[in-house]
């Protein structure tokens, strides 16, 4: 080890002194720009990508990148990499240099790393190749790199992000068009930008771009970063891969890829009949098939990505036999099983992870990363909250069989309100999936307790959930072993009832059934005695209240998901004690939510009712002080203490 490092060190020393490296001309031209910069840990001086599409359908790309490293944390900016798919793409060359004043040294190409891009799939052929000088570069130096790659295109469409983790002086994207070709572009999350024309080149350029914010409770980065989407069109007599100018074109292409996947084989038919045996109601039959497909293990195996494999499901019979598959496999299996019992259905393409990601202005399959299903039920059988009216296909119940915690007839919250494409040749536009209001995602909590004279609280707690609250409760229960679940619950309860022992838990498991969470609590010293007073806190579950970030220097909105929590606490008071101080009812109404709290003294007991409703909202930085005021008022009201005194 030592001798090898020694040899390497000598070699590097020689490389940096005896034979000074030479920068490419583009990099020499920008070097004066290295002087003077912001206070950020690194500044990207140039982030330039130039693309050219050949008539052979191959895209050639050249990236130029230079970053000034200002301090230790900025060393992460000293890297250039590219994603590629073996078989249809390759990184042809990758070189990098470090510039220190007038001295240039090569970054050792032996540091090039080639790695799987996705490692939680059983197989995924997409790779990333890059060269990092993170451990070589020092503050004050400039990292310069250039990369050339080639790729057989699946689509003549591109999407570029127009903002970096670091502030960027020049961010440029260039597209070299073949004669007679044309391109259209649109910018999401930013002002419209038309390309400059320079000969056959279209150039989109931004200067002095701020760093991408990384702020708590911000919307998804894809909903914040300016994204440039470009579609290229070749003239009719020329071939170019994957051209789309309408959503119907996208729907037809996706439909052709999954054509035949919804046809049931004998095995699929037999399973569908077995699953629905004895069920006559159409909705219930579809739900039974949905439950079966939900239990099919989610396993991702991505092959043939460069040839559209990422959009093509495996045969349903194979998925059934192996009892595993990814989202499109599960959707295809469910379609086939539904078809076997005479129910029509369609694949639905959407984006999972950001309900605002898919935009109608850019017809492209690249906007989708997830597949679910739309089921056409007879109007009399339709009773799902996730139903939509499709202009061509009529009433459709939307269902995600990949989400094992959301029952048939409902949709995961993160998919609600998103734009999606029903994969059918007759689909001409995206559809908006239903977005259910806050009170659909409710938690109702009832605490019935007895307060002993020594301050010990003995109580039973019942929680009932709907919508996303129910899905989350099921996911927690299913995701944790019994011991871990108990520990999680104990910690949650201890936040409002210190030193609570939690016992007798029954928890929601099955997505198809409406199951409450129930448990008992024993908390010694819950009520505190001081002098002649007994202080009784209210055991509201306010630990999950949002922490509103400070408005100072805030650049992005705060995203709040919808929810309603209603709590009723009933405490039997010990004999000999009487209420001394009880708060007046509190009602707080604001655009950020609604809150009510009231105490109802009864004979020997105290009842408190609390309700907090938070609507889905994006709170702009300017509104944060007002939002913080609302949540502080809620927090303060929650922490109110009831005082008991000895009866005279």
């Amino acid at each position, binding site marked *: 080890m030592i001798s090898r490092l020694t040899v390497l060190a000598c070699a590097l020393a020689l490389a940096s002194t005896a034979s000074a490296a030479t920068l490419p001309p583009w990099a020499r031209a920008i070097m004066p720009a290295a002087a003077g910069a912001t206070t950020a840990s690194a500044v990207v001086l140039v982030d330039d990508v130039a693309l050219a599409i050949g008539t052979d359908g191959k895209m050639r790309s050249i990236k130029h990148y230079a970053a000034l490293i200002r301090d230790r944390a900025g060393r992460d900016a000293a890297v250039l990499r590219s994603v590629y798919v073996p078989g249809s793409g390759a990184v042809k060359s990758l070189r990098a240099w470090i510039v220190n004043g007038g001295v240039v040294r090569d970054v050792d190409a032996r*540091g090039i790393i080639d790695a799987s891009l996705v490692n939680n799939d059983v197989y995924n052929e997409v790779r990333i190749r890059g060269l990092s000088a993170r451990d070589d570069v020092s503050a004050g130096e400039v990292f310069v790199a250039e990369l050339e790659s080639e790729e057989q295109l699946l689509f003549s469409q591109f999407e570029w992000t127009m903002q970096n983790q670091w502030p960027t002086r020049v961010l440029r994207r260039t597209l070299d068009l073949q004669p007679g070709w044309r391109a259209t572009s649109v910018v999401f999350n930013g002002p419209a930008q038309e390309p400059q024309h320079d000969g056959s080149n279209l150039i989109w350029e931004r200067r002095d771009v701020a760093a991408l914010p990384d702020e708590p409770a911000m919307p998804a980065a894809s909903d914040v970063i300016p994204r440039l989407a470009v579609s290229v069109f070749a003239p009719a007599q020329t071939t170019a891969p994957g051209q789309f100018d309408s959503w119907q074109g996208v729907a037809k292409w996706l439909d052709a890829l999954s054509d035949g996947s919804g046809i049931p084989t004998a095995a699929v038919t037999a399973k569908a009949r077995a699953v629905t045996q004895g069920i006559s109601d159409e909705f219930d039959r579809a739900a039974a098939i949905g439950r079966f497909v939900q239990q099919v293990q989610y396993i991702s195996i991505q092959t043939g990505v460069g040839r559209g494999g990422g959009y093509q499901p495996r045969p349903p019979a194979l998925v059934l036999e192996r009892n595993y598959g990814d989202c499109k496999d599960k959707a295809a299996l469910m379609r086939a099983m539904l078809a076997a019992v005479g129910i029509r259905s369609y694949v639905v393409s959407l984006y999972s992870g950001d309900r605002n990601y898919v935009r109608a202005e850019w017809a492209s399959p690249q906007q989708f990363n997830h597949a679910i299903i739309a089921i056409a039920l007879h109007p009399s059988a339709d009773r799902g909250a996730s139903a939509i009216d499709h202009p061509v296909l009529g009433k459709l119940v939307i269902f995600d069989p990949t989400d094992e915690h959301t029952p048939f007839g409902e949709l995961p919250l993160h998919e609600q309100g998103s734009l999606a494409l029903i994969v059918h040749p007759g689909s001409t536009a995206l559809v908006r999936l239903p977005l259910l209001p806050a009170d659909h995602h409710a938690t109702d909590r009832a605490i019935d307790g007895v307060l002993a004279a020594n301050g010990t609280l003995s109580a039973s707690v019942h929680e009932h959930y709907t919508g996303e609250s129910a899905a989350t409760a099921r996911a927690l229960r299913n995701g944790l072993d019994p011991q871990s679940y108990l520990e999680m619950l104990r910690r949650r309860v201890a936040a409002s009832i210190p030193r609570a022992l939690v016992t007798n838990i029954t928890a929601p498991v099955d997505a198809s059934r409406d199951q409450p969470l129930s448990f008992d609590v024993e908390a010694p010293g819950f009520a505190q005695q001081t002098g002649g007073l007994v202080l009784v806190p209210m055991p509201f579950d306010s630990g999950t*209240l949002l922490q509103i970030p400070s408005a100072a220097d805030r650049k992005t909105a705060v995203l709040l998901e919808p929810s309603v929590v209603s709590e009723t606490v009933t405490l039997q008071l010990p004999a000999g004690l009487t209420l001394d101080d009880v708060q007046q009812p509190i009602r707080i109404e604001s655009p950020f939510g609604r809150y009510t709290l009231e105490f109802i003294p009864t004979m020997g007991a105290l009842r408190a009712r609390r309700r907090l409703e938070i609507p889905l909202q994006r709170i702009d930085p300017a509104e944060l002080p007002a939002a913080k005021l609302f949540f502080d008022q809620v927090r303060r009201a929650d922490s109110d203490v009831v005082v008991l005194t000895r009866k005279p």
Partner: protein
Amino acid sequence: MRSVACHCVTVLFVAMLALPASAAEWKPLDPAHLALKQPTIDPGADAEALLWEVHVSDEVDPSGSPSTVYEHYLRVKIFTDRGREAFATVDIPFASGIEVRDVAARTIRPDGSIVELKKSDIYERTVVKSDDLKVKMKSFAIPALERGTIVEYTWRELHRDSLATNLKLRFSRDIPVHDVRYYLRALSVPGYQMVAFPFNGNFAAPQKQKDGFTMLSLSNVQAQVDEEFGLPDLEGRPWVFVGYEPSGRSDSPDFDKHLSSDLYEEYSKRARPTPEIRQLAAAALTGATTDAAKVAALARVARDKIRRIDVDTATDSDRRQLKETKNAGDALRKGIGTADDVLLLFLALADAAKLDARVAALASRAQLFPRSLRPHPAFMPERIAAIHSGAGWLFVDPANQYSAAGELPWDFEMQRALIGDPRQPMTAETPASPAAYSLKKRVGVFKLLDDGTLEGEARLEYSGHWGEIFRNDEDQDTAADREKDLRELLTKRLPGVEMSDVRIDNLLDPSKPYTNVYRIRIAGYAQRAGSRLILQPAIFQKGVPQMFAAPQRKTPLHFPFAWSELDVVTIELPEGYAPEASLDRQGFDAGAAKYEPLVTLTGSRLTFTRGLSVATSGLYELNTYQPFRAFFEAVHKADGEPIVLRKKDGL
């Protein structure tokens, strides 16, 4: 800063390698296992391994190089959907020099029908590849997996240029295991023998097999448990150490003598002082009169003169400068080096100062307790210095850069140290640091407003092992990351808190406490109750979960080190408010642990002082849990005790 260690073993043998390719040979299945409906070892288990076998065989390939062949076999019963998910996919990573073959898997349904994994469903990919590293992975998904099924899979690994030495063979998994069997087959080499030391389990006596293997087995193994203040990994689970040793050495009563002598030989000649080192020592010792003071001064010099590049804060450029150090003078001249170079320089400085300083070997308590030491060099890999002083020994770790003057890190405390000596071995136990050494000192100066808002400045100082821990955790972070972490930590404890003027001081200066300073404002900190304000004066404990809150525990306790806490909080009360009841607080003394609260009122200034001392470290058996739990429950309750403030009449 954390050390980056590399242990290499090179031994050459000549023998014959046999690695026949073979189809999977599935073990006979007990029908009772097929019918099993519930777990038998742990009722809450999602899955249980029915059989876990590993054959480990050292052989020689046709080129004459040694290789180790591992044959893995695992049979698991699935009881729940969580278990199904956990075993749905199998990844077998392997690096250059390792070959994975004969992968096979199958699922056995409760009715006895079998679904085999097809060869075409085994995927291989290169996870990462660079000039000097290549990691590949074979992956597959288990077909037809459901609750109630049995899944079993097997594969072989051929490790080239390898010997089964210094192996830590684990006998537990994250699920319970009915039967674990390791089969070991050593190379037959004159003068050497394979040794195996079992730990933490009722292992069956080793059984010789006909094919030359020796079987080590364990039954009914509980799943690993991770608990607060739990045991180090190797102390909390069953395992077996396997290694090669010259015949007769490991079980020899002279083992200590050999190692002690080897240590002395390795360091004594190289640690001779040069004139420069003598000058340095003389300058450092000015004013130092006791051995302890001299040792501390010399440790500081050694640490400051050699910048360590075997730590994670060093860069690749730093590491490229790494060269073999000939002796202490060489180490001083280079100015950069490893922990060993710092130790070498310290020993030379101590020699120059006419101190009797020796190298000492020991184990890390983060790995092993003294009870688990065995006569094998792999059990004492760490090196520190021992200085003869009076009738005993002073121990110092000059390479511990985040201690003030070479104090031992916590995991070197309370360990058996073997001191290098040319004639006879000497051992001593390294001392435990007192609770006062690792102090958390928190000072707060606050003002309470009449709406319950609390605002003011907090200063938190961490010394001793606390300082080391924070520095090690944060020395690679940016200042912005450190501040962000601090904000998140405080926000979690005190929802609604506003933080400003955040400073983190003395991160890299171990001569001073690691310090956080910030201003806070918490709306509604004091709770309202009609005309009263309810104030918890233990502001630094507000929202902190109780230690040992779980009513029961499965594993013994391990306190890394003793510590103490001192809080001094002053709160200016809002005008017109005064405590309604007595401010008396009760402390409690549980012997090794003590809690001392005090509340005083001077005018409108309330002062809360809190002292906590936990003067205990090391291993505590499970039956001590409830007393510890009771103590910390009482502390938690006392910390939460409020002061009721009432507005005086007429105001």
